[in-house]
């Protein structure tokens, strides 16, 4: 990993289009500003990871026995009708 030291207000540039500016430090929190074109998706790492984990977990579902989708659907509907 490339490690750079920057002062507040200073920036780094990634390729031609992305500029990251270090705006503020408060305790253990750092505010950074990112200028990037609209087509560059920017997300917090943990959101990415959570979605990845959720996808992997969801893919483990199988269709054995009474775990058939129609059973699950009927149970959902039944419970909903109670609400």
């Amino acid at each position: 990993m490339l490690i750079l030291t920057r002062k507040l207000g200073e920036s780094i540039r990634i390729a031609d289009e992305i500029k990251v500016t270090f705006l503020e430090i408060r305790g253990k929190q750092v505010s950074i500003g990112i200028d990037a074109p609209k087509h560059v998706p920017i997300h917090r790492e943990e959101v990415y990871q959570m979605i990845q984990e959720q996808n992997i977990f969801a893919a483990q579902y199988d269709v054995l026995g009474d775990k058939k989708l129609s059973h699950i659907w009927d149970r959902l509907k039944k419970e909903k009708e109670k609400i």
Partner: protein
Amino acid sequence: MRLSTTRFGDIDIDESRAIMMKAGILGFEHLKRYVLLVQDEEILFWWFQSVDDGSVAFVVINSFVIKPDYKPIIQDNDVELLEIESPEDVILMSIVTIRSDPFRVTANLRAPIVINLKKRLAKQIILDKPDYPIQYSMMDNKLILGEESYKKEEIIASALSI
């Protein structure tokens, strides 16, 4: 082509029905082709089966069925990437996490799969809105499931029956 799947055995796949995902699904980036499968026309769960790996399949639901006021913003570059010409061509599918307790069945509203049914291109996008949860409980809204069957006919038309 014939695809051997873990859940449904061998199925015949009409390759023109395949949906291309250039970026894959997060966690499954190497799998690029999927097909929508209908197991039971009476329900609104569908299968999103990988064509490249017979053991990978997701249960999906049209996001509007569980959240009728769902209004995600699809970025211009994704509109371009998916060659979307009209909103009519698009469906949004949420990946469902099935658990035996109905109260714990969740759908991912934060990262819907945007499918252009016309061009058969899809992408799992990540929305900027934290108020669309990754684990949205299917019991959360007051609507009775199935009361509204958004685009059901279109989905069935572009899916394969198993």
